[in-house]
């Protein structure tokens, strides 16, 4: 019996805490889980400290007023995604031009496969 735990997902508390249902984390849509997984994966690769992401996430959540205290928070992962993008661009990992171009390809259907 093997358990490939990897390294644990960093804790999030207070404003930044993960949406949960019965104490378990929930994703409402596929894109939310991909956005989640990418941030944790890049953090584990050592591209940034967890605090660098968390600070940006808290800033996003704070900028839109009080966070709804419910299990399924529809905007949490949108904030997550914005914070992730800001971090990537602050770090110079991705630039806006390539991002916009790639996004347009997906929106037009020119590109359909992610990988």
């Amino acid at each position, binding site marked *: 019996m093997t358990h490939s735990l990897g390294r*644990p997902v960093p804790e999030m508390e207070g404003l930044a805490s993960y949406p949960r249902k019965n*104490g378990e984390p929930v994703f409402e849509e596929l894109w939310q889980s*991909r956005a989640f997984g990418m941030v944790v994966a890049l953090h584990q690769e050592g591209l940034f400290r967890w605090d660098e992401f968390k600070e940006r996430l808290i800033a996003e959540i704070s900028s839109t007023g009080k966070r709804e205290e419910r299990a399924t928070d529809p905007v949490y992962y949108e904030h997550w995604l914005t914070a992730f*993008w800001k971090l990537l661009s602050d770090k110079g990992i991705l630039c806006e031009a390539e991002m916009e171009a790639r996004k347009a390809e997906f929106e037009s259907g020119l590109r359909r496969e992610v990988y």
Partner: protein
Amino acid sequence: MGAHHEHRDEHEHSWAPPSEVEARVNALESLLVEKGLVEHDAVDALISAFENDVGPMNGARVVARAWVDPDFKRRLLEDATSAISELGYTGLRAEHLVALENTSETHHMVVCTLCSCYPWALLGLPPVWYKSPPYRSRAVSEPRTVLREFGLELGKECRIEVWDSSADIRYLVIPERPEGTEGMSEEELAGLVTRDSMIGVGRALSPSEARAD
């Protein structure tokens, strides 16, 4: 894991435009994969670990092994970080894990007075009360009363030791093995080990309590 691949292939002929946010996520992932910064399977594994493997079951397996294997228990008490790696649990980062054995004479309970340090890889997400200021202060100032509120009445002869977790050290309590469990398999035994019993605010379930669950 090919689930997502297959899903997307099926839809190749009935393409529907992605929402704005889906297009953003697709763009990010495809760029990060191209640059070799992210692997699709690694992201899958993280998501599935977060969604499914989170819970006290990993800790319960460690406790059950300690109950049935005295040599393992000895190694666990000597160096828990190394002992749990025998079971494939290498999920701890810099933190050192220390196992504490509860007996009829000594009862260990765990708190994090500063924040909410917790052996995440073994016990999943910490319960809400673990992070609450009353538990964090009262576990130290009046542990016996706190345990009574959890429904755990300890005899006067039983000494209580409270352990304060930190960024460097996390604790796992090995509860006493319940009576009447001699014939049970390791897997059945793991089903008796509750999260609370591994934080030291409860006992492991008796076989009849487990059936009633």
